[in-house]
C-alpha cells in the first residue's frame, strides 16, 4: 500500500554547531550563514537538527548580527 511507503528518513545534520563550536558567537558570520536560507531566513529546527537551547542561541546571534549589518535582513 502506498500509504505505508515513506521516503527514507534522512539523517539530520544534527548538531552542526558541536563541530568544534561550543558557544555561538554573533560575530562569526561564516558559521551563522549556515543557519540561514538563501533569502536570509533563519532555518527551522527540524532542518538544523539543533537542540532547543542551541537553536535559541543561534537565532539570537543571527538577530544581533543582522542589526549590525553582518547578515542580510530576510527579504521577500
Amino acid at each position, binding site marked *: 500500500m502506498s500509504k505505508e511507503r515513506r521516503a527514507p528518513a534522512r539523517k539530520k545534520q544534527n548538531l552542526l554547531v558541536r563541530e568544534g563550536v561550543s*558557544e555561538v558567537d554573533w*560575530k562569526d558570520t561564516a558559521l551563522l550563514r549556515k543557519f540561514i536560507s538563501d533569502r536570509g531566513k533563519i532555518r527551522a529546527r527540524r532542518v538544523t537538527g539543533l537542540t532547543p537551547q542551541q537553536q535559541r542561541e543561534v537565532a539570537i546571534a543571527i538577530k544581533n548580527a*543582522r*542589526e*549590525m*549589518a*553582518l547578515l542580510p*535582513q530576510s527579504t521577500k
Partner: protein
Amino acid sequence: MRHYEMMVILDPSLDERTVAPSLETFLNVIRTSGGEVEKLDVWGRRRLSFEIDKKAEGIYAVLDITCTPEAVKELDRQLGLTESVLRTKVLRREVKKARKAAKAPAAAKA
C-alpha cells in the same frame, strides 16, 4: 563593574588608520570612571549586508570593556551623537574564560 562587548560601525569615508586614535578619545569616559578597556579591535572596512544611511560599507570596530553601567551608557550616548558613527551595539556578555574557569573547579570536585 561589568563586562561589556561593544561594536561600532563608522563612516567608510574615514581613514582606517585614524579610527583607533579617535576612538581612544571617547574611551577616556571609561578610563576616568575607573573602567578598563581590555581590547580594541578594528576590523577595518567591510561591506554592509544592507545600506545604512545610504552607505554600502562601514569600518567595524569591536571593544571589550569592563566598567560601570553608567560609563558604557555615557560612551554609547556620545558615540551616538557623533556623525561619523553609523551604528553601535552594546552587549553584556560573560567572558568565555571566566565561564570555563568556573566550570573547571566544579568538574575537579566531582
